[in-house]
């Protein structure tokens, strides 16, 4: 049975600036609490979680034009998984970041989704703290 979650946050930074971090697959461990490593090899990424487990993922889409990143977890417990990060320009110097998870079994959507909610909080904190500002960007 499929379950879905969706979390969003508005970030007081331009979409292009946020996308530089959120759209960089190998940098997920910088802003997703509980993920301690996220190396990328081609379209494959392996995340390692704080609890010690590693999970392989396949990168499905990284579209710099519409600022969409999609991936799927490929371990057998998932009959289906798709994670989607959208960075949406609000054309006022801010952006909306939406992190969606769909999973079968559905419970995994809640388990993963809870992490994505915390990740958005951390992404917003980092971006708005200025730690990723570049000269002239904000």
């Amino acid at each position, binding site marked *: 049975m499929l379950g879905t979650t969706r979390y969003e946050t508005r970030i007081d930074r331009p979409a292009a600036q946020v996308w530089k971090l959120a759209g960089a697959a190998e940098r997920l461990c910088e802003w997703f609490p509980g993920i301690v490593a996220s190396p990328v090899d081609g379209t494959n990424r392996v995340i390692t979680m*704080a609890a010690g487990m590693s999970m392989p993922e396949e990168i499905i889409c990284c579209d710099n034009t519409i600022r969409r990143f999609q991936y799927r977890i490929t371990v057998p417990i998932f009959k289906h998984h798709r994670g989607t990060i959208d960075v949406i320009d609000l054309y006022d110097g801010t952006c909306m970041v939406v992190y969606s998870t769909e999973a079968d079994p559905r419970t995994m959507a809640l388990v993963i989704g809870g992490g994505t909610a915390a990740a958005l909080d951390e992404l917003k904190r980092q971006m708005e703290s200025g730690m990723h500002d570049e000269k002239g960007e904000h």
Partner: protein
Amino acid sequence: MGRKILFITTDQQRYDTLGCNGGTLSRTPVIDGLAAEGVRFERAHPQSVVCMPSRSTMLTGQYPSTHGVWMNGVPLPTTAPSVAEVLHEAGYRTGLFGKPHFEPFLDPFGRFAENNLARNNSVGPVRGFEHFEAATHGAAGQLHYARWITTTHPEALGMFYPVLDGALEVNALGGGDTGAPQAWVNPIPREWYHTDWVADRTISWLDSLAADDDWFCWMSFPDPHHPWDPPASEVGRIDWRDVPLPEGYSADQSQREAVLDAKPRHWRAWYDGRLVSNYEAPHDWVPATLTPDQIREVNALNAVEVELIDEALGRVLAAIAARGWTDDVDVIFTTDHGELQGDFGLLFKGPYHVDALMRLPLIWRPAKSSGAQPADVSRPVGLVDLAPTFCAIAGLPVPEWMEGKPLPVNDADADARGFERVLTEWDSNLFGVDVHLRTITRDGWVCTTYQPGYSHDGTEGELYCLADDPLQQVNRWADPACAALRSDLLADLWDHQPTMVSPLPRVVAPV
């Protein structure tokens, strides 16, 4: 030196499972003895009938609407108010042993303090507890008990019932003799089982304290919550074939279903397997398939677990006596919520505000040095009153952020201090299926209003007379003769209902 506090909780235990409350299945001489010497509450209700909100209420002295843990899967922030913090700051030594469940168990990202303590070989401090050793219903997971089993008795890892299935749903797998869901033959030696582990860890900590320390010890047994998998060596205490069916179960199918049909529609929908509105019941189990023998076996296994708790408590009280503390210790025994346990042809729990889930065992044996007299209290009280009670025992003012009152010591005290009503809330939203209940129990009536949600349009409700209908089988919500009473109860409910915290905290895990 002040009064010390031993706070004992179980998980998902019905009022009628104790001998002192009329139960005939389990032998509970230790708890019955506390009741005989202390205050026995006949109408103690939780403010939520699931674990995380209810336990958060015990810790904070606040309603779920206020502390914000509005359903399982919503973590209580580690910065939330805590009665343990209040007591610790006043000089009390503080410890928690057993099931906390203020934060979700399913935590692959390692985001929650409870889970991280054991992983980091730490026992605290957290939430005002200087010592915190956690357990849940088996050996899976990251808590202290699981790590203890893994390191000292790894052969026991596979003995417990698998609480969750491969899809991380609550398991519907049947076992035991009857195939009842979550019934299981567990070959684990009794001394490795979590009930005795909780008592052992409690005793070890108490033994580490100085004789003149004041202390607050929360001993939190994971049982008799399902799975019903007590050590196999103990199962022979009660032959399930001899167990009577519960009064709340009608063996006549048409009669049973007629009772359900008179209740709001999600009752019958769950029974028929058309809607499982909450995570706490197995998604793949259809209650209509529950057999009388399965109910007998579940009740027998549950009763065995209750007896083991009673005996474990007896060991702890003996350890306290050996330290010479008995006369200065307040002992409070309760649980977080009840269990349907066959009533209405149902098991487990959910958005069903009836006595099976709301009427709780609550025993308070005040320190003998306090001079309190034994009493039975019939007036309604809530778990929200526990934290203020702990403050009162310790001689501390009740903080403004607590919403309850120190428990009464008898009915006259209850009347004098306005114990007229108790409120219970339910809110859940699981993949778009949302359910919202608000309940008031007052003047011998229990009245539940359903707010608009997936199954309800906001007009539904339940109204029962506890004296005439103790099994809550005749729903008088739509009875014209009760219209004025219903209006009065609802007005009183909304007059006293706390405002829900906003924004609503996120659900970040199933449980």
